[in-house]
C-alpha cells in the first residue's frame, strides 16, 4: 500500500474549500445554541413547574436521540407535514443549510443548558448570601455574582461541547451539504483512495480541535486570573 502524495496535495486545497461552510455551521449553531441554552437554563431554574417541566422533556429528548436522526427528521421528515410547507419558515427548512443549522442548534442547546446549569449550581452559596447581606436584589445577585462565577465553572465543559459540535458539523454531509466532510466523500467516491483523503481530513479536524482547545484555554486562564493563587 503506497500513499499517493500527489493526490493528497491535490485534494487538501479542495477540502479546505469547505472549511468556510464548516465554520459557518459551527459558529452560527454555537451562537444560536448558546442563546437557546440560556433560555432553557432560565426556564429550568425558574422554580415554576410549567416552565421547568417542558425544558426537562426537551433536554431528555434531544440528549436521548442521535443527532443524525434529528437531522433526518428535520431535513427529510418535516416536509411531509403540510403546515410546515405552508409556514413562513419553509424557505429555511427547504434548504439543507437551514436544516443543518436548526438541528445542530437544537441539539447543542440541550447539552449546553445542562452544562450551564452545572455551573450555576456550582456557585458557592456563601457568595450569594454575602450578596444578599449587602442588600443586592435576587436579580442583581444572579447577574453580578452567580453569572460570572458560573461562566468560569462551566467553561471547561463548554469547550468540550464546542468540540463535539464541531465534530457534529461533519454530519451535514449526510444531507447533501458540501462541507469538508462532504467534499472528502465526493473525492473518495471519484478516486477510491480512502486512506489518503480521510487521513488528511482527520489531520485538518485535529487542527481545528486543537485551535478550539487553545482558544478556550486562553479564555479560561483570563477568566480565572483572580483565583489563580488559590489553584
Amino acid at each position: 500500500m503506497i500513499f499517493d502524495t500527489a493526490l493528497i496535495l491535490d485534494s487538501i486545497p479542495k477540502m479546505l474549500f469547505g472549511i468556510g461552510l464548516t465554520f459557518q455551521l459551527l459558529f452560527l449553531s454555537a451562537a444560536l445554541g448558546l442563546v437557546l441554552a440560556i433560555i432553557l437554563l432560565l426556564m429550568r431554574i425558574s422554580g415554576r413547574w410549567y416552565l421547568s417541566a417542558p425544558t426537562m422533556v426537551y433536554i431528555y429528548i434531544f440528549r436521548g436521540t442521535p443527532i443524525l436522526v434529528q437531522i433526518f427528521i428535520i431535513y427529510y421528515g418535516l416536509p411531509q407535514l403540510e403546515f410546515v410547507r405552508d409556514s413562513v419558515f419553509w424557505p429555511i427548512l427547504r434548504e439543507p443549510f437551514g436544516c443543518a443549522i436548526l438541528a445542530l442548534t437544537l441539539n447543542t442547546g440541550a447539552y449546553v443548558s445542562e452544562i450551564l446549569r452545572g455551573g450555576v449550581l456550582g456557585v458557592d452559596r456563601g457568595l450569594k448570601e454575602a450578596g444578599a447581606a449587602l442588600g443586592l436584589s435576587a436579580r442583581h445577585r444572579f447577574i453580578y455574582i452567580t453569572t460570572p462565577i458560573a461562566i468560569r465553572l462551566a467553561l471547561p465543559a463548554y469547550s468540550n461541547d464546542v468540540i463535539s459540535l464541531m465534530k457534529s458539523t461533519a454530519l451535514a454531509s449526510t444531507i447533501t451539504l458540501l462541507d469538508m466532510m462532504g467534499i472528502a466523500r465526493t473525492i473518495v467516491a471519484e478516486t477510491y483512495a480512502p486512506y489518503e483523503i480521510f487521513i488528511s481530513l482527520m489531520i485538518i479536524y485535529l487542527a481545528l480541535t486543537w485551535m478550539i482547545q487553545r482558544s478556550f484555554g486562553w479564555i479560561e486562564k483570563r477568566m480565572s486570573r483572580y483565583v489563580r493563587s488559590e489553584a
Partner: protein
Amino acid sequence: MEAITGWWDDFFWGSVAVARIFVTALILTVLFGLIGAGAKLSKSRVAKSIAGGYTVVFRGTPEILVLLLFYFGSAVTLTAIAQAFDPEIKFVDIPPFWAGSLAIALIVGAYATETFRGAFLGVDPGQIEASRALGLSNLQTFIYVRIPAMWRLALPPFGNHMLSLIKDTALISIIGLQETLFVAEQAIGTTGKPFTMYILVGAIYLGFSTIITLSVMVLEKYANRHLEVGR
C-alpha cells in the same frame, strides 16, 4: 400511524441489530478503555505516548470520518489483497457490523480511557496498602480492591459514554448496516412518510437511552451499597 403497519417486524429486527452492535461495541469499549488507561498509567514512555496519541486522534475527529475511514479503508486493503490472489474479485469488505462496532468502540474507548485513568487514580492508596499488608498479590489487589473501588468512580461518566455509544450506532446505517435508520429509509421508499418513520426511529433510540440511564442508576446504587449507611 397506519403507514407503519407492516413495518413493525423490520423495525424490531433493526432494533435487535442496534442492541447487538451496542453490546459488541460496549465490550470492545471497556477493553480499549482499560488498555488505554493501563498504558497511560504505566511507566513506559512508549505506551504512554501511544495511548496519548490514541485519545487525541479519536476524541478530536468526527465519528463519521473514523467510521468511513475504517469501512472504506479496510475494503480497499482487503480488495487489493484478494486481487493479488484472484484478479477476478471486484470488491471485498469487512461486514459493516464489525467495521462499525470497531470504529465506534475505538472512539468511545478513547473517552473511556480518560475516565478509567481518572478512576484508577481516584482509588484511595490506603486501600491498596491495606491489601498489600494482608498479603494479596498484585492480581488479587487489582481484581478485589482496585476494580470495585474504581468502577464506583467511573460509573457516572461511563454511563454517559454508553449513551454516546448507543447514539453512535445510528451512524452505521451510512455504511449499509440494516439497523433502524436503514429500515426507516427503506420504509420511506415505499410509504413516502419520512416524518413518521424517522420519529419512530427517534422513539426507539429514546427507549434505548432510557433503559441505559435506568440501568446505570441501578448499577450505581449497587456499586455504592456499602457506602449508604454513612450518608
